[in-house]
C-alpha cells in the first residue's frame, strides 16, 4: 500500500518537475513547482515526519510559492510567453543536469541503507527539547544564530521598505514585511488606471 502511494507521489513529482522547466507560461511553471513541493510534503507525511511536512507546506507551498505568484502577477501579463533559450545553452544545461543526476544516483545506489525496524513518530515536544538543549547533540547554537539572522533580515526589510526619510509624505501605512510594499503600490496604480 505505502509502496504504491510512494510511486504515485514520485511520478507526480517527476512529471511536474519536468513540466515546470519546460512550460513556456510562467505562472504554470510556478504551479507545477508547487506540485513538486506538495509531493515532497507528502513523502514527509509518509515517513511519519509530520512536523517537517507541515513546515514544508507552510514555508514552501504557503510562503515561497505565494511570494513567487505575487511577483509573477505584478510583472507578467497573461498573453506573454517565455522565450526559448539558445540551443548551446540548452545543451549545456542538459549536460549539467545529467551530471548532477549521475552524482545523486551513484551516491544513492552505493550507500548501504539500513531498514529501520521500529517506526518512531517525532513529536513537536522532542524537536523543541532538541532545539533548546545545551548538551551534546543539542541545537541551541544554530538555533540562536538563525534567530539573530532572521532578526537582522527583518530589520533590514523594514529599513528598505521605509525608504529614505519619507516622513513628510504619508508615513501612515508602512507595512512591516517587505513584499507588501510593491503590492500596495501596484494596487493603487491599477486602481488609478481603472478610475481613469
Amino acid at each position, binding site marked *: 500500500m505505502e509502496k504504491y502511494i510512494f510511486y504515485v507521489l514520485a511520478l507526480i513529482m517527476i512529471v511536474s518537475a519536468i513540466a515546470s522547466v519546460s512550460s513556456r507560461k510562467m505562472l504554470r511553471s510556478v504551479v507545477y513547482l508547487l506540485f513538486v513541493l506538495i509531493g515532497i510534503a507528502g513523502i514527509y507525511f509518509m515517513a511519519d515526519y*509530520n512536523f517537517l511536512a*507541515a513546515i514544508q507546506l507552510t514555508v514552501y507551498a*504557503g510562503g515561497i510559492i505565494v511570494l513567487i505568484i505575487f511577483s509573477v*502577477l505584478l510583472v507578467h501579463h*497573461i498573453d506573454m510567453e517565455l522565450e526559448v533559450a539558445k540551443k548551446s545553452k540548452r545543451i549545456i544545461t542538459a549536460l549539467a543536469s545529467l551530471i548532477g543526476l549521475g552524482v545523486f544516483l551513484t551516491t544513492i545506489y552505493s550507500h548501504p541503507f539500513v531498514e529501520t525496524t521500529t517506526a518512531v513518530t517525532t513529536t*513537536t515536544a522532542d524537536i523543541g527539547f532538541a532545539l533548546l538543549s545545551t548538551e551534546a547533540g543539542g541545537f541551541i547554537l544554530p538555533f540562536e544564530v538563525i534567530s539573530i539572522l532572521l532578526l537582522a533580515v527583518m530589520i533590514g526589510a523594514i529599513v528598505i521598505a521605509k525608504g529614505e526619510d519619507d516622513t513628510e509624505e504619508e508615513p501612515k*501605512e508602512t507595512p512591516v514585511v517587505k513584499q507588501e510594499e510593491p503590492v*500596495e503600490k501596484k*494596487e493603487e496604480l491599477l486602481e488609478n488606471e*481603472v478610475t481613469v
Partner: protein
Amino acid sequence: MYNSLIITNNIHSWVVSWMPAAVTGITEMIMIALAYLTLFAVLGLFLVLMERKVAAWFQLRIGPNRVGFFGMFQTIADALKLLSKELTGTDKADKFLYNLAPYFLIISSLMALAVFPFSQNLQAFDINIGIFFLIAISSIGVIGILLGGWSSNNKFALIGAMRSGVQTISYELSVGLSLLTMILLTGSLQLSEIIEVQKSGWLIVQGHIPAVIAFMIYMIAGTAETNRAPFDMVEAESELGAGFHTEYSGMKFAYFFLAEFINMFIIAAIGTTVFFGGWLSPFGITESIPWLGVFWFFLKAFALVFLMMWFRWTFPRLRVDQLLTLEWKYLLPINLFNIVLMAIIVWLNFTIQF
C-alpha cells in the same frame, strides 16, 4: 485512525465479512472520504441558508420562505440551478489554471475538516501536529484565489486576487499567533489532547485575561482570513464587481462560494476546539452520554458562525490601508505582548482550573 463508535464498528465488521483483507483498508478510507464529502456539501448548503436567514433577521425581513418548509430547501434549489448553468469563461484566459483554481480552495478546506474531533471518538485523522497542520493547510487556499484572479484575464479579478493575497498573508500571522498563545496552556498541538486538557475548564476560562484577548484577536483575524465583511475588500461589489471570481459561472463559481462558507465553519470549529472545549459539554452535564458531543460541538461552532455573521451586518467595510494598519500596527503588537503575558501566567500558575 479508526474510531470506536458502535456504528463504525458495525460497518467495519460488515466490510471485513465479505471483502479480502487487502482492500478493506482502502474501502474504509473511501467510505470515510465520501462521508466527509457529504458533510462538506450539506454543511455548505446549510451555512448559505443560515447566512440568508440571519441576514434577513438583521434587516427585519423574512428571508427565503417559498421552497419547502420555511424555505429550508431554497439553497438545494439554488445548487441544482447552479449545476445546470452554462460554464462560461473569457477568451484569452489561461484555461488550465482557470479550471484548476477552485480545486485548491475546495481541497484545502476538505483537508482541514478531516482533523476536527467532532466527538470523543469521531475523528478521521488525529495527527500529532493538529493545530499546526490546520495553519499549514489554510495557507494553501490563498493560492487558489490568486490563480483564479490572474488566469481569468480580467482587471477586476486580478485586483481582487491581489487584495485577497495581501489580506490573507497578513492575517494568517495573527491567527497563528493567537492560537500559539493557547498552545502555551495546552502544551500539545494534537487536537484530541487539547480537548483532554479542557476537562478541567475550557481554555478561555483557564487562561482568563490573555485567553479572552487571544479569542478576540482570533475572531477578528479569522473573519479577515475568510474574506468576509467587514473585511471583504476582495469582492467589494461597488469597486470590483465580484472580485476574483468575476469570470466564473455555474458550478465553478459554486465551488468558490462553498469553500468560503466552509472556511467560515473551519474558523469557527478551530475556535470551538481551542477556546470552548470542543465536544465537551458545559460543566460536564452530559458526560454520561458521549454521542451528545457532536451536538455540543456543532452548537458551539454555529454560535461562533453566528457571531461572524453578526459582524457582517454590524460593521462597515474597511479600506485597504485601514485593513493593513489594523493588522500590522494593532493586532500583531497586541498579540506578541499577549503571548508574553500568557507565558508569565502559565509560569506562575495563575490559571483557573476546576
